[in-house]
């Protein structure tokens, strides 16, 4: 692991080390919690053949939407593409391989990797096409489907605050998949709006202890461009 004292990085240096063809977890549910600055740096850095793991595909023209549109993404493991018609088009045209998981199972498959388990046993989706082909095992007299852990080479996460050891605090609904992914990947790169000295974050408020985080970069607040587009209510 990276030493506590060596985690603060320049954003381009942090993403430059991601290999071509890497499997990358990306935090965020819609815009909140999406590490926009890291994703933009990754686009600039040029790696292709990527497998991305993210709850959704953001919206066209922002976040992983940009990487998909630039043809950098071979495969997407996700829960829902409802807000991104260009991603759905790429899927339908065969330019993007998409694997769908129910949202809570996706979260748990990631959490499982973060906990060092091989998988977990679920009853979600039994009797539906989501469970087709899923192996089963009987425990306590009931059949359970086996969901293997989902691993990644890298996680890109967004936090509100960090310290230079890599302790992270998330805010409001920008938490979502970030704390799970921050535990799950081999290398975890966190962006934060504010980067403090160790001791500045209240210890009971830290969501991700620094042990799980490999690198920290400080970024500017997201632009309104990266906010949620007006829809819904």
């Amino acid at each position, binding site marked *: 692991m990276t030493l506590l004292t060596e985690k603060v990085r320049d954003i381009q240096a942090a993403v430059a080390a991601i290999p071509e063809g890497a499997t990358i977890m990306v935090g965020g*549910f*819609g*815009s*909140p*919690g999406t590490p926009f600055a890291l994703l933009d740096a990754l686009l600039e850095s040029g790696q292709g053949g990527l497998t991305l793991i993210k*709850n959704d595909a953001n919206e066209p023209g922002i976040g992983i939407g940009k990487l998909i549109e630039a043809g950098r993404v071979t495969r997407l493991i*996700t*829960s*829902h*593409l*409802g*807000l991104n018609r260009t991603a*759905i088009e790429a899927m339908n045209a065969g330019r993007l391989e*998409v694997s*769908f*998981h*129910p*949202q*809570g*199972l996706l*979260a*748990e498959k990631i*959490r499982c990797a973060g906990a060092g388990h091989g998988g977990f046993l679920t009853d*979600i*989706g039994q*009797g*539906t*096409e*989501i469970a087709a082909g899923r192996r089963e095992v009987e425990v306590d007299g009931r059949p359970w489907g086996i969901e293997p852990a989902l691993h990644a080479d890298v996680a890109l996460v967004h936090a*509100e605050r960090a310290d230079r050891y890599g302790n992270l605090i*998330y*805010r*409001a*609904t*920008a*938490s*979502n*998949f*970030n*704390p*799970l992914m921050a535990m799950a990947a081999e290398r975890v790169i966190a962006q934060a709006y504010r980067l403090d000295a160790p001791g500045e974050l209240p210890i009971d408020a830290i*969501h991700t202890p620094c042990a799980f985080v490999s690198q920290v970069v400080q970024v500017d607040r*997201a632009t309104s461009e990266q*906010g*949620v*587009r007006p*829809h*819904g*209510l």
Partner: protein
Amino acid sequence: MASDTQRILARAAREVIPGQIVNLGIGLPTRLFHYLPDEMEVLVHSENGVLGCRPRREGEAPDHDMIDSGGAYITTRPGASVFDSATSFAMIRRSRVDLTFMGAFEVDAAGNLANWKIPGKFSPGIGGAMELAQKVRRLVVLCSHNDKHGNPKILARCRLPLTARSCVSRIITDKAVMDVTPEGLAVVDIAEGLDPADLQAATEAALIIDESRLGRF
């Protein structure tokens, strides 16, 4: 006069008991938000990680970190909490959400629900719908009684891929309120002015109608 949608929502709001935890599905159910008065102690759960949502007030600036699962900027009421996606779905899978309202492409007499995929036409992914449908204590479907071509959505048996089996407790449409019972769909309320025979004609599933006990809405 109230639109069909408004009538569905007003009727649906009567399902909510003060003190409950309620999830509102994307689309029509989300609009139920506005039918729950501020003073009613109900916490609205949104599966992206918040319990205690309320709509933004007129002129209230959006908080860019605070959305519901439909992607709308929201705010929170006293007693609210935020949490990660694993905790949010643990709450769902452990049936700690009392009530959810969901839309439907099709719903049938056995309480099966299809609302996530139309093969070859619409398959954006299942999101949180499967876990909500399978595990929330009480699932109430809100939908139009017929599709825009007039075809019934309340079927004898669903034809689309299912979201979950035997998950629906009650169906509220513009034409009727129906309960899923072991004997089939029992009509609780019928739309003001609608004839029971016309209701059955607009429905593929056989309906159990006891005219002596029928409410109007």
